[in-house]
């Protein structure tokens, strides 16, 4: 029985092992920086293999929820195909980030191996979120991820903006954690259970809702909205992403966001009625009310994110604001709460990971000292000075806008389809309006790169491993945009096995 379970838990074990041992290696081999780099990449690659294995295993051997008590994890963790899918996503994001980091760290600052182990630790946190079936385990995962992010944000210790961002992130994040924990405590008090499955089952079947339960769920939504950077708890995101090391900002805004959305899928989704025609789940605080709240948050997030991004002159800040908007798009999948919505979340998270990390890597190649050369006007004439960078950035921008044939379009199409299917046509229309707004600033960057003459500042960039990241990201965007079926089928099959 134990070995049976071990194959599912293996990715988490592996990533935790590699994360902790990376620190030890750093301590032993102080001088050689490359070993930590290769070690973490190899570690992530092995974890991906384990996750793929467990993905296909879960498809074959489904563990029913009510049996999970008998496992050694005592129902603390679940082993679903969906979690395994996201495990792979987190690891791929990690590899892309680490590949782009080496040159970047070398250039401006000293390369330190604990950087890599922190990335691995945050990935471990994300994986725990995906596998959690217990509010406390979920909390541990969120905290592991967040604390790693706090440190990574302030990794440039001598750079004032980086340190400021870290402090801001830490203070606000701690506050949000308070909300989260308080919400969990109240839910525990009302439902008498920390097991997410049982607690949500209790909430959706009990006749009369105690007030503390409603407050608890409300606080939980607030806490998670903060982690997702959804309106009105998004204010930290632009500052933090702007101040953080550029490559890390790309990582946080994609993998971190996907993990937070995954947490919402795990906790909030069961409270939303799945079928719009049957209102079986609304005895307690109406499931439709929660759905409406999330829908409003989603709509406001999209609009606020994109409108704020309109006026930004700094590319990094523009992408930070637009990443807020993308959280809004992802939330549409939770509002819909139907198979298309889950597939849409999975697909869009993959597409968004490639385009956002790619765009941030390009910024990291062109910027200097985490400050200079970040304005849109600095990108003037990039197509002449750096044709490859301009072309890939063009692909990322068009994909972020949602122009076919890039993957971003299919993701949006799926999410639109899912909300329309659940009867929220107005949300789809708001999303369309938000996309229209976003065209302006994404295209603005393309204008600067292609239609303007290069300025006096000639920017140089070292070719290196970052180009691998860019290559993977742009090729993946085109391939998944033209042949999306592979990812969609995978996530679809995974979600059928998601344990309810």
């Amino acid at each position, binding site marked *: 029985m134990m070995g049976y379970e071990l194959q599912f838990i293996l990715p988490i074990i592996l990533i935790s092992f590699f994360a902790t041992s990376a620190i030890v290696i750093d301590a032993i081999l102080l001088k050689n920086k490359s070993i930590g780099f290769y070690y973490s990449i190899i570690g992530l690659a092995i974890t991906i293999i384990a996750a793929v294995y467990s993905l296909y295993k879960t498809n074959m051997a489904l563990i029913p929820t009510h049996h999970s008590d008998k496992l050694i994890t005592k129902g603390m963790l679940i082993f679903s195909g969906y979690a395994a899918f996201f495990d792979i996503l987190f690891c791929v994001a990690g590899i892309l980030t680490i590949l782009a980091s080496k040159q970047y760290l070398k250039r401006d600052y000293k390369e330190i191996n604990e950087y890599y182990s922190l990335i691995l630790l945050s990935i471990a946190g994300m994986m725990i979120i995906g596998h959690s079936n217990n509010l406390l385990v979920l909390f541990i995962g969120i905290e592991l991820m967040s604390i790693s992010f706090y440190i990574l944000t302030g990794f440039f210790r001598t750079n004032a903006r980086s340190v400021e961002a870290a402090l801001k992130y830490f203070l606000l994040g701690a506050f949000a954690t308070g909300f989260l924990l308080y919400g969990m405590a109240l839910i525990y008090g009302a439902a008498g259970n920390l097991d997410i499955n049982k607690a949500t089952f209790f909430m959706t079947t009990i006749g009369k809702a105690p007030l503390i339960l409603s407050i608890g769920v409300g606080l939980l939504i607030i806490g998670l909205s903060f982690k997702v950077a959804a309106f009105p708890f998004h204010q930290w995101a632009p500052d933090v992403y702007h101040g953080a090391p550029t490559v890390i900002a790309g990582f946080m805004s994609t993998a971190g966001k996907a993990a937070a959305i995954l947490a919402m899928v795990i906790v909030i989704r069961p409270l939303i009625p799945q079928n719009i025609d049957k209102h079986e789940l609304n005895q307690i605080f109406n499931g439709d009310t929660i759905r409406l709240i999330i829908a409003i948050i989603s709509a406001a997030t999209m609009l606020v994110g994109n409108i704020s991004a309109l006026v930004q002159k700094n590319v990094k800040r523009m992408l930070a604001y637009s990443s807020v908007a993308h959280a809004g798009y992802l939330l549409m999948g939770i509002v819909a709460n139907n198979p*298309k919505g889950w*597939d849409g979340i999975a697909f869009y998270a993959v597409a968004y990971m490639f385009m956002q990390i790619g765009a941030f890597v390009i910024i990291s190649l062109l910027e200097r000292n985490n400050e200079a050369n970040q304005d849109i006007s600095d990108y003037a004439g990039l197509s002449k000075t750096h044709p490859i960078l301009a072309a890939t950035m063009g692909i990322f921008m*068009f994909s972020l*806008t949602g*122009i*076919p*044939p890039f993957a971003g*379009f*299919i993701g949006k*199409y*799926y999410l*639109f*389809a899912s909300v*329309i*299917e659940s009867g929220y*046509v107005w949300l*789809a*229309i708001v999303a*369309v309006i938000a*996309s*229209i707004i976003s*065209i*302006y600033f994404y*295209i603005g960057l393309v*204008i600067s790169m*292609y*239609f*303007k003459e290069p300025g006096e500042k000639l920017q140089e960039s070292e070719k290196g491993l970052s180009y691998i990241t860019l290559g993977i990201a742009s090729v993946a965007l085109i391939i998944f945009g033209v*042949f*999306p*079926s592979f990812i*969609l*089928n995978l996530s*679809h099959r995974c979600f059928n096995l998601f344990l309810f």
Partner: protein
Amino acid sequence: MFPLFITLFLPLAGSLFLLLLNKDKPKLIKYTALGFSFVTFVVSLFLLFFFNQNNPNFQLVFEAVWIPSIDAGFRLGIDGMSMLLLLLTTFISTITILSSFGAIEKREKEYYVMILLLQFAMTGVFLALDLLLFFVFWELILIPMYFIIGIWGGKERIYASVKFFIFTAVGSLFMLVAIVWLGYYTGTYILHNSAGFTTNFFVLKTALLNHPIPIEVQRWLFLAFALSFCIKVPLFPFHTWLPDAHTEAPTPGSVVLAGVLLKMGTYGLVRFNLELFPQASIEFAPYIAVLAVIGIIYGALVSMVQTDVKRLVAFSSVSHLGFVVLGIFSMTIEGLQGAIIQMVNHGLTTGMLFLCVGMIYERRHTRDIAEFGGLARVLPVFTVFFGIAMLGSVGLPGLNGFIGEYLTLFGAFRSQVLGSQWYTIVSATGVIFAAVYLLWMFQRVMFGTITNPKNENLEDLNKREWLTLIPIVVFIVWIGVYPNSFLKISENSTRALVKKLELVRTSNNKRIEMKDVKTEQRSVYKDK
């Protein structure tokens, strides 16, 4: 089927192949691009042999699985209407590339990659028989066209390209929501298929024929689709992007924009709006026809006062496409056939006018009418070509424009959907205005004495320019003298569509009568 597949993918293959070539060899790049485009044109001519004109349905259908979970497939097919437009696309693209040899002088490699990509996307729009696939091609057009205007355009190119991009994207995103809604509604409520979703055009067509969407919803869907297409056409209040885009685009860009891109809007109106939302189309037909008539008159009046030749031709497009839209929404065989032949005509004549304007521009680097005068003396051969294009556009009997305008006006005249002859009477004045502004422009540019000394030593057409213009002239005269060889290609498809619309209209009327009878009965019953 195979030839259709080649017609679609050969330009894409060419575009990718050009990426591999060295950018320091512009000559090689030019001729490779021309070769790919020309072979595509030849292949598309072969399609005529495979195509059965007596069959009104889609032919040479190619289907492949694409995204099974939402029943989106890679479905291609062709009927009479798209056949003509496909031939127009491959023809104009070849001409465009030939004309680019003189007009494009920087960053050649990127340019030819973009123009072949554009040809691929345009072909896809006319072949796609799946709404999602159609939308992908529809949006894909934006990217190359945006770069063509933005990089190789004139002074205000950035403004024009952004305006073009945003106008088109705004329209199409609302169409996207409508596509999703339609797919969901049909899949879940009519077909009950496993995906609960479909964008298959064949399926949608038959399903919606038997189970029409409730008219309240159909109106919104119609408007969402129509907005997107009307912006592209462009219909009167949405036309403001067109003059800017045309004026700022390089000559080949204008040719392809006028020749093919605008036809996508009118094609979409016929293919999707009339076919999928017949009830709403009948309801909205008078309103859209009014906009079309306004466009005809407005475009003509604005053309008269232009001082820039290119801008004048651009505004004349607004006027000419008004005829197309009027013909479409007359919903008669004559009107629709006229609209389709007028799409081809406009592509040929306006494309040729832009080519001619481009040729003068290459010689004088200005397009201001006041700068010219008396060019006929120094450019006798050019004058003949320019004259033919201009007269074709005016609608001189014996040339192509006459056939299209006559048929659309006749269709609108006897249309029962529009129900009034005033549409024809008012828009017929547009033909007169066209004669006024085009002949006046021609007179000011070509005739009289040479007032500007710079015009004295211009060279007449070279061989390449001859080669660009001759094929267009052949078609202009051919359509004018014997239009039947083109009309009969599309005739059966249009006949089937009109028949269907007629059926919907009569059953609508019956339903209304039935309702009246019922309410009368009820009131009688109440009185008792």
